[in-house]
Each structure stands twice: as structure tokens, then as C-alpha cells.
């Protein structure tokens, strides 16, 4: 099943298949390049937002200006904030049927296979964001009847103002970091998901993010609230065309999982190689809740992303599974953060990175246990595989333990594909490329087997495609 994951992953070869583009001549609105109070106010105005949200944005803009650009992680010095369009409206209204969508935009989603997956009933709901705004949205009727809300965040601000106001910016405050502040100032689109107490959504909700125009900045804002005992799996995918100048994707994702709730958030991102992908993702898990991040990072020029789980209630669990694949000219600085703020919480981070053709991948992770959080358990495993001498891998594990009564495990390994492994497989008729692919898929197997079957199959295909023609 899994929507168009096949289609998305097909793009990750050196010749990126999702590099196609449509004209932006038909767009109904395009903010001028650059960032100032006027542009921010204009975005708010275009959306007819309430005053509190406009103030939130303007305050965030100040914070963004004040905060220095991080000097750790990747090289951010080449981002030209004045060369970016912070808002583009591609269609004048949102469709509930694909027939309502302008033909140029619908064509894109057809090529990505999304309407088809929806027809086949493989997903419970779809949100499709094109540039700054969501152009299509749907949710299965029975879920609507149970009180599940799955809309774009702009709509949520209008239609569910109380819910949004209660949670918006509470998990990731404006001041959190420079890019969270940027997003808070110019955010547009993203998903708002609300699962009422006890409701279990059995098949995934899917969001799809597409950048089409050049010099476009995409700043979606996602907020997921899982009430007590409720359950949801949210999946997002991302692609963009290839342009000569860089684009910026800087999302904020906030998740609240209440007592006994479960949330799994799966990302398969496959950006073109000129996208800066600087995303802040954080969840708060209350008593006995489970939060899982499954994060597949492929493509982009630079990704800096460390999904976090704050375990704030007794017995809460956090899991982060991350795969990063850094190819030519790419830097994947990824990992995860687990913060144990309550007793008897447990967490696990499994990170696997692969570097080839001069790519660079880094694991950057934080494990923190606060004073008084007794009986916590955490296990961190990060493994890196380097496919050639030009490629690079680094590990930056940060561990802060303020409590004595904890069980902590940390393992890290870096390996190279061994000559003996290659020879052994080749002596059984596998070409060098096929043998490397098999070794790589074996390398990520401990993680892939955690995925639902259909995603596991896709992930393997993805690796196969990434490896094709990479050797010899």
C-alpha cells in the first residue's frame, strides 16, 4: 500500500525523477522576495487571521532576527533570506475533490500517484500541500463522524480556534531556535490532526508536501493532538523540482500524546539536492503514552533534523528510528532527542546512516534524564556505513543524566563495506552493485523490520534505487 512511496523514492537516484516542474504563471498570489514585517503581515492578511496569530507571527519575526545562525551542524551561510518567496498561493481555494484542483497542480499529484492511492482506500485521509497552502484535503467519513479532525492548519485556525490556540506553540515555542522562529513568523499550511479520546485510526493519514516554484520557501506547521487512549499513524512525504538556486523548507511539527495514547509519525522525505531542510519536530508524551518517530531522510542539500520526545508522564515511551542516506553533495545531520522528565519512562533511538559518493552523514543526538526521573531506561544505537573513501560519517552523542537510578545503553559503530563481504556475495553470482545493495539493505534491516510491511518493502526498493549504478 503506502501511497506513492514507490513514486517518491524513485526520485532518489542521482537523476532525481521528481525534478519536473509546472509553470507558476497561474498562481493567484506570490509574495515579493524577502522578509520583513510587511510580508509577514501580508501573509496573515491573506489568510484573514485573528489578531493573536498576527501578533504571534510578528513577535516570531523579531526573535528570528535576534537569534544568530547556528554554527554547528551544517553550513547555513549560503542561505539568502532576501532571495526567497515566503508565501505563494497556487490555487484560490482548497478542493475536496481532485476535479476541483487546477489541472497543472492535479497533474503533479497524478504523477506522484496520490489520487490513485486514495481511490484504492489505502489511506484514511489525505492532505496535499503545494507551495504554501494545502490544495486538497479529505478524510474518511466514518472518522469525521467519530470526531477526528484532519484539516490544514490554516483552516484549523479559522474553524477550531480554541483548540489551536490552546496548543499552538506550546511544544515548540517561538524562542526555541532560529528556524522555529522563522517558521512561526511565516508558517503556512501543514496539518492539524485531532484524535478524540479512545478513537483508534487504523490506517494512516497521509500528507504530501510539494515545492514547485524556484526560490520558494515552504514553512508548513503541523499540530497533532492525540487524546487519552487514542491512536494515530501520520505519514508525510516530500519532493521538489531541481532548480539552480536553493530553496528552503523549514517546518515545525508539534505533537501532544495524552495518557495512554499512541502516535507514530513517519516521514519519507526525498527532496531535490538543492533544498535546505531545517525542521523542528517535537512531541510530548504523557503517562503511559507512546510516541514513535520514523524518519527516512533522503535527498536535500542539507538536512538538520532531530525529532524529539519529551516523556512527561510516568511510564511514557519514546522511540526514534532514523535512516539517513547522504549522496553526492549532501549533508544529512540527523538524529533524535529523548528527554526523560518523569519516572519509569523508557526510550530507544536507532539511527542508521549511509554515506556514498562523497556524501556526509552525522548522527547528532541527545539523551537526557532529569533529576528525580527514577527507573528510566534508554538505549541508543547508531550505526554508520560508509561506501567509499570520499564519504564521511560523524557521531555527536550528547548525554545528560541527572538521576542515578537509570539504565542507559549506548552503542555506536562505523563500518565500511568489506572486501570479504563483497567477494563472498560476488562468488555467488551477485554483481558488485547488487552485492553492495544487499549489504546496505542488511545494514538497515534492524530498522526496516520495525516498519509496517508495506513501508519496509518500499524502503528496500528505495535503497536499491539509491544504490543502482553506484559502484563500478
Amino acid at each position, binding site marked *: 500500500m503506502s501511497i506513492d512511496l514507490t513514486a517518491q523514492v524513485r526520485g532518489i537516484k542521482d537523476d532525481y525523477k521528481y525534478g519536473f516542474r509546472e509553470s507558476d504563471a497561474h498562481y493567484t498570489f506570490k509574495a515579493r522576495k524577502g522578509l520583513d514585517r510587511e510580508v509577514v503581515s501580508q501573509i496573515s492578511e491573506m489568510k484573514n487571521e485573528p489578531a493573536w496569530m498576527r501578533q504571534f507571527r510578528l513577535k516570531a519575526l523579531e526573535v528570528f532576527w535576534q537569534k544568530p545562525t547556528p554554527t554547528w551542524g551544517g553550513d547555513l551561510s549560503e542561505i539568502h533570506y532576501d532571495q526567497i518567496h515566503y508565501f505563494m498561493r497556487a490555487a484560490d481555494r482548497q478542493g475536496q475533490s481532485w476535479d476541483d484542483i487546477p489541472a497543472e497542480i492535479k497533474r503533479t499529484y497524478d504523477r506522484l500517484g496520490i489520487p490513485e492511492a486514495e481511490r484504492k482506500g489505502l489511506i484514511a485521509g489525505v492532505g496535499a500541500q503545494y507551495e504554501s497552502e494545502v490544495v486538497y484535503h479529505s478524510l474518511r467519513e466514518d472518522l469525521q463522524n467519530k470526531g477526528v479532525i484532519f484539516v490544514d492548519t490554516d483552516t484549523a485556525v479559522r474553524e477550531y480556534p480554541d483548540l489551536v490556540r490552546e496548543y499552538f506553540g506550546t511544544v515548540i515555542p517561538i524562542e526555541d531556535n532560529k528556524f522555529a522562529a522563522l517558521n512561526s513568523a511565516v508558517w503556512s499550511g501543514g496539518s492539524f490532526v485531532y484524535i478524540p479520546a479512545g478513537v483508534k485510526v487504523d490506517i494512516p493519514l497521509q500528507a504530501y508536501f510539494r515545492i514547485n516554484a524556484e526560490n520558494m520557501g515552504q514553512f508548513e506547521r503541523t499540530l497533532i493532538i492525540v487524546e487519552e487512549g487514542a491512536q494515530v499513524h501520520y505519514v508525510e512525504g516530500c519532493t521538489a523540482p531541481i532548480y539552480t538556486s536553493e530553496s528552503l523548507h523549514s517546518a515545525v511539527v508539534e505533537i501532544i500524546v495524552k495518557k495512554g495514547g499512541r502516535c507514530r509519525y513517519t516521514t519519507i522525505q526525498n527532496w531535490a539536492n538543492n533544498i535546505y531542510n531545517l525542521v523542528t519536530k517535537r512531541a510530548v508524551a504523557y503517562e503511559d503514552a507512546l510516541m514513535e518517530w520514523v524518519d527516512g531522510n533522503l535527498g536535500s542539500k542539507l538536512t538538520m533534523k532531530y525529532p524529539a520526545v519529551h516523556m512527561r508522564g510516568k511510564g511514557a515511551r519514546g522511540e526514534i528510528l532514523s535512516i539517513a542516506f547522504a549522496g553526492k553533495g549532501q549533508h544529512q545531520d540527523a538524529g533524535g532527542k529523548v528527554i526523560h522528565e518523569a519516572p519509569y519512562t523508557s526510550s530507544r533511538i536507532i539511527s542508521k546512516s549511509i554515506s556514498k559518493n562523497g556524501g556526509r552523514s552525522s548522527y547528532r543526538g541527545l539523551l537526557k534524564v532529569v533529576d528525580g526521573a527514577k527507573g528510566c531506561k534508554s538505549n541508543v544505537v547508531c550505526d554508520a556505513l560508509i561506501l567509499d573513501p570520499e564519504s564521511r560519517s560523524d557521531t555527536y552523542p550528547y548525554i545528560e543524566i541527572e538521576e542515578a537510578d537509570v539504565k542507559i545503553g549506548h552503542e555506536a559503530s562505523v563500518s565500511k563495506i*568489506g572486501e570479504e563481504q563483497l567477494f563472498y556475495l560476488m562468488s*555467488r553470482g*551477485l554483481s558488485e552493485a547488487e552485492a553492495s545493495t*544487499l549489504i546496505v*539493505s542488511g*545494514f538497515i534491516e534492524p530498522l526496516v523490520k520495525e516498519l509496517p510491511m508495506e513501508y519496509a518493502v518500499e524502503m528496500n526498493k528505495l535503497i536499491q534505487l539509491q544504490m543502482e549504478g553506484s559502484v563500478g
Partner: protein
Amino acid sequence: MNPQVLTIEGLRVGIEGKEILKGVDLTLRRGEVHALMGPNGSGKSTLSYALMGHPAYEVLGGSVKLDGEELLELEANERAKRGLFLAFQYPTAIPGVTLANFLRHAVTNIRNPDRLEGSDLIPMREFRKELKAAMDELGMEADFARRYLNEGFSGGEKKRAEVLQMSLIKPAFAILDETDSGLDIDAVRTVSEGVNRVVERERTGVLVITHYQRILNYIRPQFVHILFGGRIVESGGPELVERLEQEGYDWVRAKYPVEAAIEDELEAHASSASAPAV
């Protein structure tokens, strides 16, 4: 493709700049079983790796032909596709890759050598059936196929898995490199019976490399060769095995003093040259 003769002529092989094989001549025909014996460090494993095309082993001269086609220019996978198989002394672990998945790739490639890589694997159902039958013959439990290739396998499991691969790949010629080492007598018997079945069914030509005669009680060679100082110095029938068993290599040393000197020198070098780390 169904080659009938494997011809090794004047094969000279070095590793890390050191010449180990100094001109090996050997001819194997389909259905024949040859034993290659020799003391530790005589170059037996070097021969097996060089025949299969290990990149660390440098061919300094000579030829290896299958029905007249030169193999030495070919990569290991191409040699495999043409019908050559090596049962490793130290099979390498591939973490995360199940035996079943690996074998499905291997068998597909060898049976359909011209197929586009990565496409059209043998249908799962068909392959599973075949795999199960082959595992049954070797007395292997079905869930063994789901284990990661050679990872945490005992010595016996590794060798059994090698013979399992051989029985599914059905090679024209197989080199068994110290297949009996580290096995108890029951395991030697099981593994040998597996090899014999393949020989019988596929008329596989086999080169059994060993320095114990034990496995040769089960896999009966018609031809026996002694590799000593980088050359085959003696060839004969099963009586050679008996003689080595009774007298050891002293008579060989006495008869071939030049090779004995080389052998002494190689002995020191052997640990680094003959076997890759597991």
C-alpha cells in the same frame, strides 16, 4: 552453458607482493572428484581464492579455462555464472541479510545470468519449496533460512550452509576449501553426503581441498594431488591419501627439497596469506 573441463595451467599467484603459487597445473572433468592435499601454508587456500577471483590475490601468470574460455579476466560473479563454485573455509557474515533472501538472489542470478540486475527474482513460492527440499536433505530446520547469513553460525552450520548453497546453485565445478575443518564426525558425514548428492545429480566436478584425510572417507576422490611449495608435486589415486595418512609429509619433503625450503619460508607467512579474517 554447460562446461565440461576446468583447465589450470602454469598458474602463478601472489599476495601482498609474495608469490605463493609457482605454477599449478590441474585438469578437472565433470563428474570427477579430485583431492588436493598439502601441509598448512602450502598455498591451498590461495589456489581456491585465486580460482574464484578474489581481488586481493594477484595472478602473476598462467591460465584457468572453462572449456577453453579464460576465467582469469572475469570478476567472481561472472565466474560463478559460468559454473564455478567455492565453498569457503571461512564464510563471511552478512548481518541483516537472511540466508533465504541471499540465496534467492544468488540462485536467480546463476540460473538467469542475462537478466537485468535486481529484476525478476525467482518467484517466492517456487523458491521456498525448492529451498525447503534442499534443507530437508541436509537435515536443516526450516527457520534456519530466516537467520542472517553466517552471522552467529556455528562451524557446522556454516559448512552446512555452504553445501546448501552448492546444492541449489548446482555448479559445474566446485572447490571445497577445508570443508571438514572444525566439524565433528557426524557433521562431516552430513556435509559429505550433501556434496555427493550434488555430484551424482549434477555431475559436478569437485576439487576437495583438505589437509586431513578424514573427509575423503566420505567424499571418495578418484584423483589425489599434493600441493607443496606452491606446486603440485605428486598426483595419483586414492593410495596417495593412505600414504600421507601413514607417513605424513616427510617423504614429500625429502623428495622435493627445493619446495621444502619454500614451504618453510611460506609457513611463517601463512597466517596472513592463507585466510582472511572472519
